[in-house]
């Protein structure tokens, strides 16, 4: 008992505290860099759901999305984008951008039941997004054009599953006969 107290008394507390705070600082710095990178440069995300078949699978593909293009206004039609859902503010969805402001977009209103097409001019400050799988996708055809500020990132590379690793093709205009 006395030996334990003696040992406790003689510990080099100064250097322990110094080392601990040094390591904590390093870890904090690492998380800060990670947070900044995640928020302003590049993030990775997992997408699940049927709305982007065949580009993304039903059960979840992981991909990298970068945030700089959105901030500098360098996204264009054909890009896959991450956007905050206008209906559920906590959800982030992945869709393909089809039209910027003042573009005229033609879309199939209800592909399961009819072939009727509608054309709309995207208002100022908004974008039109659609899923690749128009038969099962909740997108601008249901909730209308989305304000540009809801865009969060542009997807540029798929990283999981490994056999589908690689950059994603930028699709051209969608086939209107689909």
């Amino acid at each position, binding site marked *: 008992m006395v030996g334990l107290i003696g040992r406790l008394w003689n510990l080099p507390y100064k250097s322990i505290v110094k080392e601990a705070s040094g390591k904590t600082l390093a870890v904090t710095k690492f998380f800060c860099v990670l947070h900044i990178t995640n928020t302003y440069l590049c993030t990775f995300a997992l997408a699940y759901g049927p709305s982007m078949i065949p580009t993304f699978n039903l059960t979840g593909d992981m991909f990298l999305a970068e945030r700089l293009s959105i901030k500098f206004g360098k996204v264009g039609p054909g890009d896959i984008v991450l956007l905050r859902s206008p209906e559920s503010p906590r959800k982030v969805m992945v869709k393909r951008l089809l039209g910027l402001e003042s573009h005229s977009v033609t879309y199939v209103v209800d592909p399961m039941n009819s072939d009727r097409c509608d054309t709309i001019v995207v208002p100022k400050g908004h974008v039109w997004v659609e899923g690749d799988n128009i038969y099962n996708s909740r997108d601008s055809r249901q909730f209308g054009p989305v*304000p540009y*500020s809801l865009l969060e990132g542009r997807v540029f590379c798929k990283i999981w599953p490994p056999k589908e690793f690689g950059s994603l093709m930028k699709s051209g205009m969608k086939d209107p006969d689909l």
Partner: protein
Amino acid sequence: MLPTLNLTGDVVLAEHVSHRIGKVGRGDLVLVRSPVDPRRILTKRVVGMEGDTVCFYVDPMYSQTTVVPKGHVWIQGDNTYASSDSRHFGPLPYGLIQGKVFFRVWPPDGFGTLEQ
């Protein structure tokens, strides 16, 4: 936003936590990104949350009632005669809210919390 905020510019403090945890409600002053110009941030008051029925004057004779859809808010400026807000561009998605204003720093005689 007269009379709450001055014409020539007030400096206010806004916090970024409330809108992430869903604590933005009716009567709050919020910073929102303009749906018409993505580079601008506006300061307006939240008048209606999702599901509320909002009644507003389109012109002095004619008033209109709308229900705020899911995931959206209805914002209006305090100076209804000279404000471009939800009466013009419709309900705003909640995701466009950037922060909640809670304190005024400048001018010094307006220092203090802002009325809700």
